């Protein structure tokens, strides 16, 4: 079972602020993912990475950006937060078998 961490768990911020959501995993997994999920709804893949210096956009268009400078770290950044960005953001990593392990999520509220 992977250990995967997300900080902060909850964030309330004003419109126009720059935010970074942190995601770290300790299992050495090459693949990492960011999902966006509204309450009670399905998951939408917004970014993924197959390794260091590899990032791709997911199925759902997002104004956020990601970076992968270290294997264990996959932060997500919003340059200018808007109320439409209010959602839960889930980070996951996977091993070679494609089994994804999820962090606890960050619930973002933009006022």
């Amino acid at each position, binding site marked *: 079972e992977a250990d995967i961490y997300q900080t902060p768990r909850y964030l309330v911020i004003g419109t126009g602020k720059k935010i970074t959501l942190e995601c770290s995993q300790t299992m050495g997994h090459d693949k990492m993912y960011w999902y966006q999920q509204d309450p*009670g*709804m399905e*998951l939408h893949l917004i970014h993924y990475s197959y390794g260091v210096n590899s990032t791709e956009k*997911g199925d759902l268009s997002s104004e956020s950006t990601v970076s992968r400078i270290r294997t264990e770290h996959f932060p997500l950044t919003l340059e200018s937060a808007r109320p439409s960005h209010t959602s839960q953001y*889930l980070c996951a990593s996977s091993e070679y078998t*494609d*089994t994804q392990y*999820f962090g606890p999520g960050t619930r973002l509220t933009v006022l």
Partner: protein
Amino acid sequence: AQSVTQPDIHITVSEGASLELRCNYSYGATPYLFWYVQSPGQGLQLLLKYFSGDTLVQGIKGFEAEFKRSQSSFNLRKPSVHWSDAAEYFCAVGGADSWGKLQFGAGTQVVVTP
């Protein structure tokens, strides 16, 4: 393109009764299939997975699932539910040519009554 359908948006079950959650998938090759559970405000926890071999898969918390290729289904079952099983359940499909990406269903909300 891969897809997952969970026909039941919401299921209510009495504590101690059996539970079955349906999952139908579409995938061109041999699928990898997963069931995850999500408690409110939390991330997803893996319940079980199927890659190959025995089509009846045992998972954590007393759950099992059966892969039926002819029906493109991967239904989740539990013989006797506990109040702590109240949560959202997600089925997901991937495969060797999906490069690690999973397609998730819309989820089934399970409510457990006394």
